[in-house]
């Protein structure tokens, strides 16, 4: 600081001023960054870190290398064509005895059971029956005698496939893919291949809800945008109040309304429309109704702000040029609402595909979306690898859509000034 000051005093006055300004600006930028930094560090710990951790879980393959290290080492130069040699059998026998002593046999069992059904009992029975370390040269015969599965190439391929440190097993599984004995990627067996269906269902529900929100949101947004300010502010309460009401309250209310003894069924029976109560909840219909209700404000609000910015002069100009009201609406008004339609639809779709609570409470078993399976594998079966892999796919889809949304909304801000 002092040196700079002294140097500044000697030099011509213009340069130090420029430099001082620059330095002041740099200090200002530094201070600005210092204000943002605490939040970034906080999010690193409470948000980015945890999500990175989840992504790591989807490729992390620690169980087998940690509990059967010598087997993994012995299999590293196995060609995979025939049964491995005596060395690998001896290593496995040693590892299993060590694992049994440490009480960790369950760890590789669980991981390998995902690959070959029944691996759990193979490992358990082998560890139990392996009383002593086999004599040198007899490990192969001993193990095959205890459990014939050790004479099967697939058993060893499963261990080699789970040797870590990283695996594509869970990510492939999330897309209904798996590797065959030769390591090529093939379709998963039919009884395990459910996730493409779940993703398709998630996107179908998301798309359906988006379309419903658009159909219901458009007239409301149009009305609110074209009423005098006082009245539209008043009616806006009908949109904002549900928006601010707890998701749980709204979901609970829909169950009360739609259950077989509920308000809607009672009303329809009273009117004589039906004799038997209709099944309106714990099925796809209930999911669509409840989710559309929750997400409708997210459609109405962007549509409203877009429509509010459309000058009525355009419609008058179209009419004066001889366009019929329908033509003017279709060719002049509608195209101008497209940015709002796009923003609202993307927003609703992004939020809808991540839904968990509403489908879990008002849907049936066949209406659960991808989030349900992520939660299920995390807390119920504790298959964190698969839960994380499904999460990674959902996250990727969400982020891609969010980038498109960001571009769309940003573009609107740029061209916003041209509309009026």
């Amino acid at each position: 600081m002092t040196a700079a000051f002294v140097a500044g005093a000697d030099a011509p006055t213009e340069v130090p001023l420029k430099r001082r300004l620059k330095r002041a600006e740099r200090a200002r930028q530094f201070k600005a960054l210092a204000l943002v930094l605490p939040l970034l560090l906080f999010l690193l710990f409470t948000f980015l870190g945890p999500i990175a951790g989840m992504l790591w879980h989807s490729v992390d393959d620690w169980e087998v290398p940690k509990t059967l290290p010598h087997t993994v080492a012995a299999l590293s130069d196995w060609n995979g064509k025939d049964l491995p040699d005596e060395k690998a059998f001896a290593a496995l026998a040693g590892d299993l005895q060590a694992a049994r002593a440490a009480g960790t046999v369950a760890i590789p069992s669980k991981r390998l059971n995902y690959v070959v059904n029944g691996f759990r009992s193979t490992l358990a029975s082998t560890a139990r029956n392996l009383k002593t370390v086999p004599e040198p040269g007899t490990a192969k015969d001993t193990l095959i005698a205890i459990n014939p599965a050790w004479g099967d190439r697939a058993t060893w391929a499963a261990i080699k496939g789970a040797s870590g440190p990283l695996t594509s097993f869970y990510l492939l599984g999330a897309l209904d893919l798996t590797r065959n004995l030769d390591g090529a990627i093939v379709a998963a067996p039919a009884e395990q291949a459910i996730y493409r269906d779940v993703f398709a269902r998630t996107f179908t529900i998301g798309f359906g809800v988006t379309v419903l929100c658009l159909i219901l949101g458009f007239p409301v947004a149009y009305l609110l945008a074209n009423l005098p300010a006082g009245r539209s502010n008043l009616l806006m309460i009908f949109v904002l109040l549900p928006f601010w009401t707890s998701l749980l309250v709204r979901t609970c209310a829909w169950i009360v309304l739609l259950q077989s003894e509920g308000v809607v069924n009672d009303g329809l029976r009273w009117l004589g429309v039906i004799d038997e109560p209709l099944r309106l909840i714990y099925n796809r219909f209930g999911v669509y109704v409840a989710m559309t209700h929750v997400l409708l404000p997210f459609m109405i609000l962007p549509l409203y702000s877009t429509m509010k910015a459309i000058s009525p002069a355009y419609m008058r100009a179209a009419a004066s040029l001889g366009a019929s009201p329908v033509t003017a609406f279709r060719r002049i008004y509608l195209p101008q609402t497209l940015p709002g339609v796009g923003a609202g639809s993307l927003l609703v779709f992004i939020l809808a595909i991540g839904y968990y609570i509403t489908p879990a409470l008002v849907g049936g078993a066949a209406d659960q979306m991808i989030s349900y399976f992520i939660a299920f594998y995390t807390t119920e079966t504790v298959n964190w690898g698969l839960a994380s892999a499904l999460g990674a796919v959902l996250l990727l889809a969400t982020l891609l859509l969010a980038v498109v949304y960001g571009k769309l909304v940003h573009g609107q801000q740029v061209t916003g000034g041209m509309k009026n």
Partner: protein
Amino acid sequence: MSANHSPRTTSQRAAWITTVVASTLIFIFLMAPILAIMPLSFSSGAYLTYPLPGFSLRWYQDFLNSPRWMLSLKNSMIIGVASTILSMVLGTMASLGLAQWKSKFKPLVLAIVLSPVVVPGVITAVGLYFFFAPIGLTGSYAGLILAHTALATPFVVITVSATLQSFDMNLARAAASLGASPLVAFRRVILPLILPGLASGALFAFATSFDEVVVVLFMAGPEQRTLPREMFSGIRENISPTITAAAVILTTVSVILLATMEGLRRRNERLKGNLPG
């Protein structure tokens, strides 16, 4: 604006009437759940059906006398207030910084700061569950407060940044030129002017935490169950009228928040209208 909807032809009038009728039906759809559940909470009967057998406050009494519901209300308040304060401090500082920061990385930083809104709740919850469990933050107030702060801060940043955009930075410069230290300038000049924006940010943050259930579902132990979490298990098991009482209490909180927000917005618009320029 009112000239906008003065229909000139019959077909235009018909279209406008259709819009009004359709919108009315959609408004009913939007309000139906809230309106349907309210009277049921005052029912004297144990079934959630109409007509009500009679009026009573027994379900509210039930709510107030239930240690489980009261604990959940207390937990919601503790976690809500704590995460609001924390997210206000972090979010306001970041907004002040972002308003002055010029860098090509700014869009990236903004995207990171806002990302907790976009990422599906289950992904955040699962990530936090994996991350916090080994360090003992699951089943604790601290873990939930940290998680809710992360979810609430984007709303603070959005609201406060919007307020700062309309704030004239020359006022801060004037304060500095008159000898105010940055801290004094912030406290005496900037803060009073952006206070309504801060208040809306705080309301948003509180509402976010007060409503959140997915993260709580994964991370809360029995001692940290919040009101929405208690409602979740209540709905799962069997909807008793006590839940409707809880729902009405939650809705009342929402109405108060919304009314405060609306009041702040109006006040802000009035202030802007009165300021010259």
